[in-house]
């Protein structure tokens, strides 16, 4: 689904990634882990074409994103959904308009059908229909993220990118959100790429993950494999999380 090949990125002469490669398969929930400032978000932003790729290549759906024509670019963008850390809902629109925006801009469907679709997606992410008429500023952090997921699901994406989906949520909401991600994956057969450092998410949600440390991928594999690994950095990373 996503192939990263020999990717190198540096800012002001300092390497954030040095020659990293990884493969994300269809239908899996893949985690990108690493300490603060380790370049997790940069890697994600390069995948979703927000940051430029300096060296190496990233392939999505078999297209190399550096060499895309604008029509292919549009095609890819309609086939993924991105959840930003704080939801990034459009503050001038209510929840239903936020979820329906892509349908409204890309199709000529009648408004009541768009509303039906939006309300159905809202229920799929576990929110009540009464939330629909509220504005983003009236929502709690967890609700915002749920609405943002509903918005990213509007066009039935094949890949979902989540940037720290459970950070800033209370443990109960975080757990519920983790379950939602699993549920959506099973229901819709999504491929999910998550940036996270919550141990609960790592243990319960991720199929596989990679750890970025000092510009390199020190580990790629499952949680059980990581526990068996006798590497200081990996153990430290997973244990640090336990304490936190």
């Amino acid at each position, binding site marked *: 689904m996503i192939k990263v090949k020999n990717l190198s990125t540096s800012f002001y002469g300092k390497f954030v990634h040095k020659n990293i490669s990884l493969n994300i398969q269809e239908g899996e929930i893949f985690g990108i882990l690493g300490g603060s400032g380790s370049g997790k978000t940069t890697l994600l932003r390069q995948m979703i074409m927000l940051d430029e790729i300096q060296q190496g290549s990233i392939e999505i759906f078999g297209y190399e994103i550096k060499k895309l024509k604008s029509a292919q670019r549009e095609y890819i963008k309609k086939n993924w959904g991105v959840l930003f850390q704080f939801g990034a809902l459009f*503050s001038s629109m209510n929840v*239903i308009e936020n979820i329906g925006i892509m*349908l409204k801009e*890309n*199709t*000529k*469907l*009648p*408004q*009541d*059908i768009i*509303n*039906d*679709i939006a*309300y*159905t*997606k*809202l*229920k*799929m992410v576990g929110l009540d*229909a009464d939330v*629909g*008429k509220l504005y983003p*500023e009236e929502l709690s952090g967890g609700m915002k993220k749920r609405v943002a997921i509903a918005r990213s*699901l509007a*066009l*039935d994406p094949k890949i979902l990118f989540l940037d720290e989906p459970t950070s800033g949520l209370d443990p109960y909401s975080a757990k519920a959100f983790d379950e939602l991600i699993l549920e959506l994956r099973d*229901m819709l057969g999504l491929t999910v790429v998550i940036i996270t450092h919550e141990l609960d998410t790592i243990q319960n949600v991720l199929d596989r993950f990679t750890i970025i440390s000092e510009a390199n991928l020190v580990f790629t594999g499952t949680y059980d494999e990581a526990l068996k690994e006798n590497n200081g950095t990996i153990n430290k990373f997973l244990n640090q999380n336990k304490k936190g």
Partner: protein
Amino acid sequence: MKNRLEICGDWQYDSIENHIKLMDTFYQENPTGDVIFDFKKLNKIDSSGMIVIIRYINLFKTKHINPQLENLSEKHKNMLELYQTNYTHKDHLPTPPKTNLFEDVGTSAASTFQSFKNFLYFIGRILVMFLITLRHPSQIRFKATINQIDIAAIYIVPIIGLSLFLVGFVTAYQGADQLGKFGASIIVVEMSTMSMFREIAPFLAAVVVAGRSASSYTAQIGTMKITEEISAMKTMGLDIDRFLIIPRIVALIIVMPLIVFFADMAAMAGEMVIVKYHLNIPYTQFLERIYEYVEIRHILLGLCKAPLFGILIAIIGCYRGLQVQKGTDIGRYTTKSVVDAIFWLIIVNALISLLSIQLGF
């Protein structure tokens, strides 16, 4: 009566538009008996397509007709079930808010009065703080003040210089043209210089400062409120007025006369240039005439207005900044602060103008 509908082809968000029309006609034709949806020729379907089908199934159900689904593949059946359990239909008509003229006028008057009261309270608080700082000058935050002077004054010099030069140029040109009809074009020297010193230069300089500083004060303080810097300062016992507002006011009080003086000179330079090339009056003669006919009180009046304008701009900018409650407010209050500042500048300027003429100053 036709009562079998073939669902065929692609039912995806970009292709269901026409399917919906067919579906709607089918529904409007009021088929009776067993309604059958035949999925045999269905190719691809996404959530949007599925939701449309569910919508019509539900519509038929309200007519006590239960559509039969034929040739539905296992995969599509699961999908149908998934979206059927989540399907929500809600009439999303925006309810027009009831408007009552009296209520609207009353609410708006009350809120205007309230915000005016708050503003007076704010001015009072600042005044008290200001008097306290005057008695204890050591409490003035010199570094912050110098910093604000730097921000407010240095970068504004080129724009003030250029715009006032051009304003002086243009007014003198127009004046010379009109006065030339009376054969008195030389009078343009003292006439345009006087009006420039008394009114135009101080006012235009203040408008430029309002556009720059009032807006930036609102944006800065508003951002600090959102990032909870203001709350943090309050909990540390650091006085907001002393740390944030007094330095800005003092900075503008100091800077405004300097800016106005600079504006006066730039405008005069513009006049000198046009008068030389249009009326052939050399620079020395221009200056001599000013020395002779333009009294010092004209330039002093402009310079005395300047600190007052500065206080006005700083207070409005800071007040609007402190009103910010949430992220989306910043833009709105920044606009408001510039509009308010310019509006009050016009009013205060008119009052001073009237007073000074009445008092023969």
